[in-house]
C-alpha cells in the first residue's frame, strides 16, 4: 500500500486510523493463460467507513480487480484480502464478508423482487428476514411498493439495479464491491444511490467502487484511484484532489502523462500503446 492511500483514508476516518484495511490488494497481478497482463502489481487498502473509487477506461483492470476479490479468478501473484482473509485461499470465509453489486444486475426473472431478495439473503447466510424487512430495504433503495410483488422480467435496468443494491444491503457485509453500480440509474436514482453509499459508509462499511462516473466518484469517495492497462497509475485522497480538475487529471493519466505535466496535456490525446485486452 502506498502512502497516498494511507493518508487519504486517515483524513476521512480518523477514528479508524489505527485499524487494518478491510479491503486490501497486495501486489495483485493477473496474467491470463494467453499471456495478457490484465493487472500489474496493484496495491491499495480501504479502511472501514471509507469509499475507494476506481476510475479507468474499458479494459483498464477494474472488473478484474473485483473478480479477484470475489475469487471468480485466481491471482497470478499477490493477494486480495478482506478483513485479513486471503480470498483465493479461503474464498467462502472471505465471501461471508463481501456484498457485491454488478454493473448489470441480473436476477431471476420469474421471481418477484421479494423472492429474489429472499434467495440471495439466504445464500448470504441471512435466514431471519421477514417480508417486511424485504419491503423496507426495497423502499430504502427507492423501489416503489407496487413493484415488490411483480416478477422481475418486467423490470427496467434501473429497477433491477436497485434490487441488486437492496441485496447488498441485506447481506450486511462489512466490505462492499460495486462494479459500475450507477450504470442504468436515472439522475434522481443516482443521487439517491450516492446518499445510500454515504449512509453505508457511516455504518462503517468499506466500499470499493469501479466507475466511469468521475463526478459521482469525486462527490462520494474518500480515495480515488485511476487504472490504466492493469496498473494503478494514480491514487489520491479526496483532500488531495480538492481544487484539482479530476476530469483533466483522468484524461492526463489515461494518456500516460504525469501529474506535473498537467498544463501540457494536448487537446487530442494519443492512443495508448499496446492496449491491454482483458475480460472487463
Amino acid at each position, binding site marked *: 500500500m502506498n502512502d497516498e492511500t494511507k493518508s487519504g483514508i486517515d483524513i476521512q476516518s480518523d477514528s479508524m486510523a489505527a485499524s487494518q484495511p478491510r479491503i486490501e490488494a497486495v501486489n495483485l497481478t493477473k496474467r491470463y493463460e494467453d499471456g495478457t497482463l490484465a493487472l500489474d502489481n496493484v496495491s491499495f487498502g480501504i479502511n472501514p467507513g471509507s469509499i475507494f473509487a476506481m476510475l479507468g477506461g474499458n479494459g483498464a483492470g477494474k472488473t478484474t480487480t473485483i473478480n479477484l476479490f*470475489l475469487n*471468480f*479468478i485466481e491471482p497470478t501473484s499477490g493477494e486480495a484480502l478482506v478483513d485479513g482473509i486471503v480470498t483465493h485461499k479461503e*474464498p*467462502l*470465509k472471505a*465471501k*461471508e464478508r*463481501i*456484498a*457485491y453489486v*454488478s454493473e*448489470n*444486475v*441480473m*436476477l*431471476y*426473472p*420469474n*421471481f418477484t423482487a421479494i*423472492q429474489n431478495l429472499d*434467495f*440471495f439473503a*439466504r*445464500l*448470504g*447466510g441471512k435466514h431471519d428476514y421477514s417480508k417486511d424487512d424485504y419491503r423496507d430495504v426495497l423502499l430504502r433503495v427507492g423501489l416503489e411498493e407496487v413493484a415488490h410483488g411483480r416478477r422481475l422480467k418486467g423490470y427496467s435496468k434501473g429497477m433491477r439495479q436497485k434490487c*441488486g443494491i437492496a*441485496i447488498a444491503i441485506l*447481506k450486511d457485509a462489512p466490505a462492499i*464491491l460495486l462494479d459500475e453500480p450507477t450504470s442504468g440509474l436515472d439522475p434522481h436514482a443516482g443521487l439517491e444511490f450516492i446518499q445510500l453509499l454515504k449512509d453505508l459508509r457511516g455504518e462503517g462499511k468499506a466500499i470499493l467502487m469501479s466507475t466511469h462516473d468521475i463526478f459521482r466518484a469525486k462527490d462520494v469517495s474518500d480515495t480515488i484511484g485511476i487504472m490504466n492497462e492493469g496498473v494503478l497509475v494514480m491514487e489520491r485522497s479526496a483532500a488531495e484532489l480538492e481544487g484539482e480538475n479530476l476530469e483533466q487529471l483522468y484524461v492526463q493519466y489515461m494518456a500516460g502523462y504525469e501529474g506535473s505535466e498537467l498544463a501540457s496535456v494536448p487537446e487530442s490525446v494519443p492512443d495508448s500503446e499496446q492496449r491491454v485486452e482483458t475480460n472487463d
Partner: protein
Amino acid sequence: MFNIILDKELREIIGTTKFAVTFGVCAVLILLAFYVGARNYQVSRQEYEAAVAENIQQMEGLTDWGSIDHRIFLPPQPLATLVSGVSNDIGRTVNMQSRGELRTEGSRFNEDPLFAVFRYLDLEYIFAIILSLFAILFGYDAVNGEKERGTLGLTFANPVPRDQYILGKIVGSFVALIVPLMIPILIGCLMLPVLGVPMDMDSWLRLAMVILAGILYFGVFLTLSVFMSTLLQSSSASLMALLVVWIFAVLIIPRTSVLVAGRSVDVPSVDQIDYEKSRFAAQLWNERMTAMQKWMKANYNDDHRQMRDGMRTFSTEQQALQDEKMNTFVEQLNEQRANKSDLRTGVALSLARISPTASFSLAASDLAYTSMELRSSYVESANAYQQEYSAFMQSKNVDYWGRYRRHGGNDDVEEPDPIDTRELPVFSYQQPPISEAIKASLPDLGLLFMFNAIFFSGAFVRFLRYDL
C-alpha cells in the same frame, strides 16, 4: 446451502410458462398413451377370445379328430398397452400339427398395416422421444445460461460451495421435472384397471420397473444436458450439441446398429432354409424310391401277400430312417440359423446399447415382456403343447400325418359320434416370472445407471473448475 439451491431450482422451473406449457402437453400425451393402450388391449382381448371360440366352433360336429384344423393363439399381454415392443410384429397364431415345425403367423401389423406406418403412441415412445427432449429443454442452459444471464456471478459472490451448488442444481432440476410428470403417469396407472386391463401384482411390479427405467433414462438426458451446459460457454451451442446427440441416440444409433449387424453377420432367410429342407426331402424321397425298387427286384416272388407285407415293413423302416435323417438335417439347419441369428442379434444390441435410448427400450420391453423373447417363449410354449397335442391325437387314433386310423377297416359300421372338443388339451401361455424379466433387464438398467453416473460426474467435476 444445498437446500437453498434445491428450493430455488424447484420454484424457478415450476414457475415458468415454458414448464406449464411443456408439462401440459406431456401430461395430455401420457394420459392419451394410457387410454389408447388400454383400448387397444380391450380390442386385442376381444379378438383373441373370438379367435379361440371360433377355433373350437369350427370343430363342432366333426366326427373325426384327424380332420380338425386346430390353432392356438397368443393372448395379448397387459403391459403391451404401455410398451408395445414387438408384440404387434410377431405372429399370434400357430396352426397346430402333431409333428414337424411350428410357425407363427397373423401379426397385428400384418393384419392392420396402417398401424405399422406410424406405430402406436405408447408410454415407451413418450419417454424415449418426448421426455428426453423435455429434459434437454430444461437442462441445456442450466449453468452457462445462468452465467449468460448474470445470476451465476451474483450467486457466487456469496459463500456458496461449488459442489453443493451443482448438486442442488442437478437434483433440483430432476425433482422439479420428474415429480410433476409422475402425476399423469400415476393417474394413467389408476386408469388401467378401470379401462379393463387386468393388472395383477406381477404386472404392477413390472410397470413400476418400467417407470423406474423411464426415470433413469430421463436422468441420463438431464445430467447430459447439465454436463453440456458446463462444458460449453454458450447456451445456444449446448442446445445445438444436445440436439445432435439426441438425434444420434434416438434415431441413428439404434437403426444403424441393426444395419451394421445385418451386414456383418449373414443369416440365411427362412425361405433359403425352406429351400434347403425341400431339396433334402426330395433327395431322401429319391433315395427311398431307389431303395424300394432295389428291394422289389431283390425280393420279387409270386406270393403277393408276403411281398406286400415285406414291402410295408421295408417301407416303414425306410420311413423311420429318413425321418431320422430329415430331423437331424432340419435340426442342424435350424441350429446354424439360430446361432447366426443370435450372433447378429448380439452384435446389433451391443452396438445399439451405445445409445441410452436403445438401453431404455430394451429394458422396458424386457420388463413388459414384449421383447424379442416373447416370440421365442411363445414358440417354446407351442412346441411344448405340440407334444401334449400329439399324444392326445395318438390316443384318438390319428397318425402323425393327421390320418384317422379306422379299426377293422369295415365301412359298414355306424356313423361315429361327434368329437367332444372339451377333450382337446387347452393351450395356455404363461408369462415367465418377473425375476426373469428383471434379470433380462438388469444389463440395460445398469447401463442407464452408468450413463447417469458418467454425466453426473462430468457435470460435477467440470463445474468445480468452471470459469465464473
